[in-house]
């Protein structure tokens, strides 16, 4: 009796302190390139069979994190484990557990789709019989059978991404890293990718993906980590992040500058943002018809002519504005050039 409880106790200690049930476990991860700090103490875990999204602008450190996890880069400090294997000490073991789909399709242009799959299959050390079976399965699943004997250089962007992901899956790795899997894809290809990722997760794969798109993180991830300048600035489910940011914004465009000036005085809503150049006002809605009616009647009473009304889900930019008080670097640069517009909180 006492013997048994001792053993149970030992097992629990072992599982909690040394071995975890997490597919990915990162503690105090640091990385610098020359004098530039790219990752400044990152901690997170990914539970097996779940999806975690790293959300952040260019330069936040998302890709560097993925590169360290997939053994392409060595960390400067911290502990990084994949299924309890250390990415530095057990790099080759880690490599047999992961699939990586980078930002740019990592395919051989001169080989056919089928040959790409077969080549990587053999490099994952599968038997020739398994390679042939998996190749046929994946070509069919990713709707590439018709193009399987054509050189990849003739493929469209969407086809390349699908093949790239198929190649990562040839050895059925339990853990998959997807670096901006839908960047640059047309809306339809994007939906197809989302569907594939969802199905992968439902068959038990653990996924870490990076994205600049709040909507994508919202659709796919069980948990979202917001990164900026090599640090985690927020984490939680998409609902938790939305509570933080506000769920939806109502955006009103006014027809002329005079009316716009007046409208900014008339509307008295929480978290109001105005953009003089495009004559847009936006604020957090609680989603009620009452509020909408009230705002519209206020504008109507002041004889202000409304050009357009629309609802917006919070974007990465909104998350950033709320969390850091400034816009994402890339966004600020481009919008600054285009419109000279400024948001005033």
């Amino acid at each position, binding site marked *: 009796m006492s013997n048994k409880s001792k053993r149970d106790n030992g097992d629990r200690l072992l599982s909690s302190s040394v071995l975890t049930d997490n597919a990915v476990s990162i503690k105090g991860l640091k990385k610098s*390139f020359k004098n530039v700090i790219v990752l400044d103490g990152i901690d997170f875990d990914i539970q097996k069979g779940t999806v975690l999204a790293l959300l952040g602008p260019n330069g936040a450190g998302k890709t560097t994190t993925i590169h360290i996890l*997939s053994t392409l880069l060595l960390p400067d400090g911290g502990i990084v484990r994949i299924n309890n294997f250390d990415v530095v000490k057990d790099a080759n073991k880690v490599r047999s557990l992961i699939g990586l789909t*980078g930002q740019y399709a990592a395919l051989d242009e001169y080989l056919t789709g089928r040959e790409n799959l077969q080549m990587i299959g053999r490099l994952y*050390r599968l038997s020739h019989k398994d390679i042939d*079976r998996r190749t046929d399965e*994946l070509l069919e699943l990713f709707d590439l059978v018709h193009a399987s004997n054509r*050189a990849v250089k003739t493929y469209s962007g969407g086809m390349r991404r699908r093949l790239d992901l198929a190649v990562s899956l040839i*050895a059925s790795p339990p853990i998959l890293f997807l670096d901006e899997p839908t960047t640059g894809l047309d809306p339809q290809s994007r939906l197809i990718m989302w569907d594939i990722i969802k199905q992968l997760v439902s*068959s038990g794969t653990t996924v870490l993906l990076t994205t600049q798109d709040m909507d994508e993180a919202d659709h796919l991830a069980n948990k979202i980590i917001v990164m900026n300048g090599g640090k985690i600035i927020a984490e939680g489910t998409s609902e938790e992040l939305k509570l933080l940011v506000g769920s939806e914004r109502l955006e009103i465009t006014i027809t002329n500058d005079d009316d716009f000036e007046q409208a900014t005085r008339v509307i008295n809503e929480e978290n109001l943002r105005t953009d003089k150049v495009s004559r847009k006002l936006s604020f957090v809605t609680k989603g009620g018809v009452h509020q909408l009616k009230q705002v519209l009647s206020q504008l109507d009473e002041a004889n202000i002519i409304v050009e357009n009304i629309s609802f917006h889900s919070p974007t990465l930019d909104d998350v950033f504005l709320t969390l850091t008080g400034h816009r994402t670097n890339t966004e600020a640069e481009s919008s600054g050039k285009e419109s000279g517009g400024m948001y005033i909180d």
Partner: protein
Amino acid sequence: MARKAEVCTLTRHYVNNDVKAESRSKLFWLISDSWVLAKRSIKHITRNLDQLFSVALFPIMFFLLFRYVFGGAIDTGDISYDNFLVAGIFVQMLAFGANYTTMNLAIDLQRGIVNRFKSLPISRTAFLIGHVGADLVRNMMTGLIVIGVSFLVGFQPVAGVIDWILIFVLAALFSLAISWISAILGLIVKSIEAAQWIGFIVIFPLTFVSSAFVPTDTMPEPLKFFAENQPLTQVIEAIRAWMVGTPIGDYGWLSFAWCIGIIIVTVPTASWLFKRQTIK
């Protein structure tokens, strides 16, 4: 049975847990991985028209240039210029061909595909062996074309079967040696553009300041000393001796020693450079 099929369609085989990695020795996988990657690069030769074009056209161009433009003005003594030239062009083309290792390696490193290879459980050296191995195949093709063309312009070799075997064994060794040097260049350069010219900066002086196209006797003293003692001349003179019966002297063993020596130094250097890129 029916139920099993149903489960299969549900999970749709995105993941197939029946698929397992084979377990074999490390050496087996080093050879297998290198072969798989070499096969990839060999397919590039036949599918990339630019490469195929230069493999066939370069030797023909150089042959015609030296044989008919410069050849008449070059005095090679007892032996006709046709016969003198073949060994020179043969080795020069092998040396030029190695530039493809530099180029193709640089292209792979600049594009995303190297990250895929690095994330696989393969030996890092296999990636380099794959490139160099494909270069060897390309160079052997070039070598055969050179010999073929040379017969058309009046080449009359005296080589027997054993001489031809020695010629191609040395050609293969030389090709490997220079490809490993080119691999190091490909790992050092920062851009594909640089890869295009860096090889020629190294290979041009080595091929022209040698006995490839002219006897070294007429060169000024320091240049002559370099030309007579650098590895390409040893290889050219050895092959020339086997082909057309010029005196072999020490060229035979010296050429093998140079090639093997270069390989012994460059293979670990290139592997180390490639591994270091991961650690950055």
